[in-house]
């Protein structure tokens, strides 16, 4: 796809690298409060460690709550990044090009954020390393039958692979920055990060090949990670968790929420850095279509869950779903339905898909809806298990709110640093959609 554009190779370099100029006051005005909120989140966590996990709002039988909701939410956010960068790369969908770097960064930072929550939610977080298999004098290993260990492996693999993918994808661009910046410290740092990249045909040969393999690894990985996360629930026998539909349902949900977050993030960046020529309406149109698809899948899953619960005639299962829609948490349930199923409906219209403001608002709703989806799945199911005598209601505490808030700030902190230090749009790949400079106007293509 080649589009009408005034862009040239040099201008791409110019525009992207311009984003890395000295932080503006506006940027600092964003960054400093963000740091403050991260600090507050850290304080909440330390307070929780000091007093015990009771500082959070957990109560029998709801032993997982906001932290695991946050975990699944952030892992979900991560997913669309990999989808855009890897899966669409394999499908050669060119609308990904301008946004894939931002999504990939989002992936890495979201996984980085998500990875904190399993530790935050531990009763004894100082023993978190017991979850990793390492040789020890006790001669004890970990239980590979536990979905949580799968999680440990899946999330750490995901973090590693997506970071590598993110980094490798940036090498040529970092080299471009290196070649442009003049200040000594920046030059040195970018030189090191560029690993001496020169863009020779030999490098490109291995690079493209390796990149393809990374994409090929990342694609099943992205599907597996959220499947594994979903199995944290589906492997349990709890009504509301124990369903086979969970893996695809979660993957679709993850991509849905991730696309929402991509839109939420790119709209302001596009505006602030005047990237309208890079991130085009066509790009958003493509994203919006994906949003529709995933919204439909998620909506279908909501329906199927209900249907199966009714069809199974299992009192525990039906009791659970009836309760979701009518019980104490019904508001959250209907927020979820509203945000995830109803709100995306206008996207069927092209005019809405190409309306940045509308997209932005819809994306915010999707983020909210998907957070509540996880909350509903986790908390409502736990509130009503098999044994009615144990039923109980969960109430979120300020500590959990603080940490959740902190996690958002933590994510944005990385993002803000990223925007100012690394190329937010892929320089090398942007050039791929521009016409190659030729002496003779009608060359090969």
């Amino acid at each position: 796809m080649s589009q009408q554009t005034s862009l040239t190779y040099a201008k791409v370099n110019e525009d992207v690298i311009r984003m890395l100029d000295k932080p503006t006051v506006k940027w600092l005005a964003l960054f400093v409060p963000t740091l403050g909120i991260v600090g507050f989140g850290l304080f909440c966590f330390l307070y929780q460690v000091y007093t015990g996990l009771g500082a959070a709002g957990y109560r029998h039988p709801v032993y997982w709550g906001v932290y695991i909701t946050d975990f699944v939410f952030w892992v979900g956010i991560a997913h669309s990044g990999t989808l855009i960068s890897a899966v669409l790369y394999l499908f050669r969908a060119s609308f990904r090009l301008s946004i894939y770097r931002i999504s990939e960064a989002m992936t890495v930072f979201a996984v980085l954020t998500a990875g904190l929550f399993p530790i935050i939610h531990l009763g004894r977080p100082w023993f978190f390393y017991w979850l990793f298999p390492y040789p020890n004098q006790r001669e004890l290993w970990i239980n590979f039958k536990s979905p949580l260990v799968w999680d440990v492996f899946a999330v750490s693999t995901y973090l590693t692979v997506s970071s590598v993918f993110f980094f490798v994808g940036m090498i040529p661009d970092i080299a471009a920055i290196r070649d442009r910046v003049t200040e000594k410290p920046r030059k040195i740092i970018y030189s090191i990060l560029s690993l001496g990249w020169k863009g020779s045909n030999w490098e490109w040969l291995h690079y493209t090949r390796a990149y393809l393999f990374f994409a090929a690894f990342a694609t099943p990985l992205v599907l597996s990670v959220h499947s594994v996360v979903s199995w944290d629930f589906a492997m349990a026998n709890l009504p509301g968790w124990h369903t086979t539909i969970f893996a695809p349902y979660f993957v679709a949900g993850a991509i849905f929420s991730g696309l929402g977050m991509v839109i939420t993030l790119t709209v302001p960046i596009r505006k602030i850095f005047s990237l309208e020529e890079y991130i085009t309406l066509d790009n958003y149109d493509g994203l919006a279509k994906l949003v529709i698809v995933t919204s439909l899948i998620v909506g279908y899953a909501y329906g199927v869950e209900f249907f199966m619960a009714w069809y199974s005639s299992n009192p525990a299962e039906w009791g659970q779903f009836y309760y979701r829609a009518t019980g104490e948490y019904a508001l959250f349930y209907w927020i979820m339905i509203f945000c995830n199923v109803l709100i995306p409906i206008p996207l069927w219209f092209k005019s809405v898909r190409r309306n940045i403001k509308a997209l932005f608002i819809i994306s915010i709703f999707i983020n909210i809806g998907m957070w509540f989806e996880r909350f509903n799945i986790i908390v409502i199911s736990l509130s009503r298990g098999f044994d009615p005598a144990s039923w109980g209601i969960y109430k979120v505490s300020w500590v959990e709110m603080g940490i959740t808030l902190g996690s958002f700030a933590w994510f944005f902190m990385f993002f803000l640093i990223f925007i100012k230090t690394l190329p937010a749009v892929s320089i090398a790949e942007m050039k791929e959609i521009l016409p190659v400079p030729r002496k003779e106007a009608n060359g090969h293509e």
Partner: protein
Amino acid sequence: MSQDKKGGIRRRDFLKIIGVAGGTAAVTGGCSEPVEQLIPYVIPPEGIIPGVPNWYASTCRECPAGCGILVKNREGRAIKIEGNPKHPVNKGASCAQGQAMLQGLYNPDRTRSPLLLNDLGKRRPTGWENAQTLLAEKIDEIRKKGQNGRIVFLSDNVTGTLGALIDDWMEAIGGVHISYETYAYEPLREANKRTFGIDKIPTYNIDKAKYLLSFGADFMETWLSPTYYTTQFSDMHSFRDGSMGKFVHVEPRASLTGVNADEWVSITPGTEGLLALGIANVIVSEGLSQRGGELSGLLGGYAIDKVSEATGVSTDTIRQIAREFSSMQPSLAIGGGTAMTSTNATETLIAINILNYVAGNIGVTIDFGRTLNTDGISPFRDILSLVDSMSDGGVDLLMVYNVNPVFTLPKSAGFEDAISRVPFVVSFSSFMDETTEKAHLIMPDNTTIESWGDFIPSAGIHGLIQPAMTPVFNTKSTGDVILAVTANIEDLKEKYKEASYYDYLRESWKTAYSSQAGLSFDSFWNKALENGGYYSDVQPVQVSLSGGLSGAALPEAEFSGDGDYFLIAYPSYKYYDGRGANKPWLQELPDALSTGVWDSWVEVHPDTASRLGVELGDYVVIESPQGSIETQVYPYPGIRPDTVAVMIGQGHTSYGRYAKDRGVNPVGILPLATDKLSGGFAWFTSKVKLTRTGKHAQFVQTQYTTHQHDRGIAQEVTLTEMQKGLPPVDHELPGFYPPKEYAKYRWGMAIDLQKCTGCGACITACYAENNIPFVGKELVAKRRDMAWIKIERYFEKSDNKAGFETRFLPMLCQHCGNAPCEPVCPVYATYHNPEGLNGMVYNRCVGTRYCSNNCSYSVRKFNWFQYKFPEPLDWQLNPDVTVRGVGVMEKCTFCVQRINYAKDQAKDKGRDVLDGEVQVACAQACGSDAIVFGNLKDPESKASRLSKNERGYKVLHTLNTQSSITYLKKVKWDKA
């Protein structure tokens, strides 16, 4: 555990005496190694081996029932109470109150030394010598006035040696001994006197009865001897050989005993006597019994229609009860609770006696041989005259022992004001209760566990009390104090030759009993110590109906106050008359019916609640002419719409941190009314107004549902179904993997729902055995209670007369063969042990809590905080059980420490563990034998045989968890 410097409670001295090696138990986690000290004995006590428990037989004094107990002592500390199997009253069982005795012993709010009120109104510690001299001087001073009766010793019904000593002492110093029992059963004695000419309370043989008709008698809670009668009831009501006894409970409110009945008959307050006579009339007039012809004149006045109208009980029901009562022989009618606390109580109980007589139960299920030892109890009018005399300045010295009349008497009795006028009040209480607050001198008594003594609950049962540990604080047994004080009085110096109360006790036992046993005194004494007392058979006494009854009349019960609702202030099976309220285990033990904890509430019928516009947790004001109290509403279907009920025991204004300012005391607003004939205090005479306040708070419960929502958790079958025979069920569903094999042991349990009464003794026993922390109301409100075993209670719709039936189900870790919790733990902190236990390794747990999420039975608990045991409550901790630290999961372990101990002992003997050698704490405590623990691999073990019972089922068996616990369905009488 490192030595604690603070506290100042002679901990060091204590350690010196007991010589603890190392600490008791430590917290998991943490890697710092503080300097630990090893404190050896100076002189090792005989027979104590550190690390090996010693058991001491003694007698429980938490309520007047006088059950036998065994106190487990480790390294000099009492750590567990169990029922004494050799004791005829409780036969090894115990109740929650008995289990919680240890929290009285180790209560952090105990009075730690004698206290003297100084001129500034402050209490200052003083020495024993000083206190004794002071008391002796006071006595001397008063005696010099030359007036008898100006010294009053107010105690509970102290039977046995101490009672005799007090009587003797009072006589010597010219004082009066008044025995005040909160629940004195005066109408019962009066009725027996009038009916049979015998002023005593008999033993009822519930176990021999096939039909039990209770008029308000809460025999599973407080009535006479609850553990004894619970055991008997369990026997009578258990299903065997195709039949079982039937139990009908008549009361305006379904008490815990009431909900355990096959039928609860709601009756208009104060008309129980009418119903009894009405039933008797049907029996006599329909010729259902040979007896009672001579009473037809009397009974003729109680025609069924008239009775039905007055009582609100349908004629069908009356007829049905009459027929069953006379045909299911032997039967038994008992009276208590509301039937015994209205103004016509004596007449009501006479009516019940007549009913028993008519059905031929006297001498069969009612045994006047083994009578309760109530002779010493002073009549209530003596208490009232004491109040008068105190108010008039007629008492110069009041000594209070083991009673708390300021709390247990209604305000209208004026005791509080009266006692303030006594110039010198001495309290022997070990706790700062409301009466002790009025005392000038406090001479704290040892608790039962620290003292020598004896107690005679009923004829032929001489329970011995022996100390199981040295006193925790600077307290002294009152017997010793009496001896010492007497020695300080100039002319009485030589009165008691014995140096200590222990010697006095031995002497008294020497004269009283040694000849009877035909043994040398020392061997008799040692045997008594071993058995927890001396028990002799008592010949049954035949009684006959006295002549004057035919002219007896049954007056109407009188109620005062202009409210719309009858107020039942009912005695609590947890706090008795309020004395249990300072024990956190009891506060945290969920009430069997409301599952409420740490507070009071008013039980209101749901219809009444909606009429008042209130719901669960709303505050209402209950107002009588004598005062008002404000408490939360608990809508309860088991109460008449015109009646409300509040539990006695809370609402302390003193009595330590756990009791003070918690809940309300309904006794406070009762009018001073008495039963007309016996003069006993009548609790059930008030009509109160209820007004909503608009205030609302969460009603802190441990169970927020009342229905099973078709989950089939607590199941039942009808008697007819049982008689036809149930189809055999295979509990082992096919699994994906082959079933697990066990070598020698598979520990398991059988729980008979037919027997479980919901009393909660198992819960408290579990707390005591397993170092389970109590967490307080605020955390229970967040459902963070740590109980390893809970009693689920469901009110299920039923076609019975009440419209609902109650099912209790003890829920604890099922130790599933196919446990959902195990595979999800990432670090193997929970796993399946080769003996079928679901192991929980605290120190490996990182706290992901996934196991609890995946536990279908929701029995896992999490340590949200580092829970505290305020010193010296931590002395009670079982050294064999790890004290769990913050952030780890915990749950029932099937008392693995006991299993390991039994295996260790068996290994010494070179054999395997035999059936019955391991008793888990809950099964041990259970009075109704509902919980049976044992090795399922041994086909002959009791648990194994019960597990194969046709009534057996596994909770949530469709999940194929292959749990080790088999529940036996409750058997229900079909609608007749």
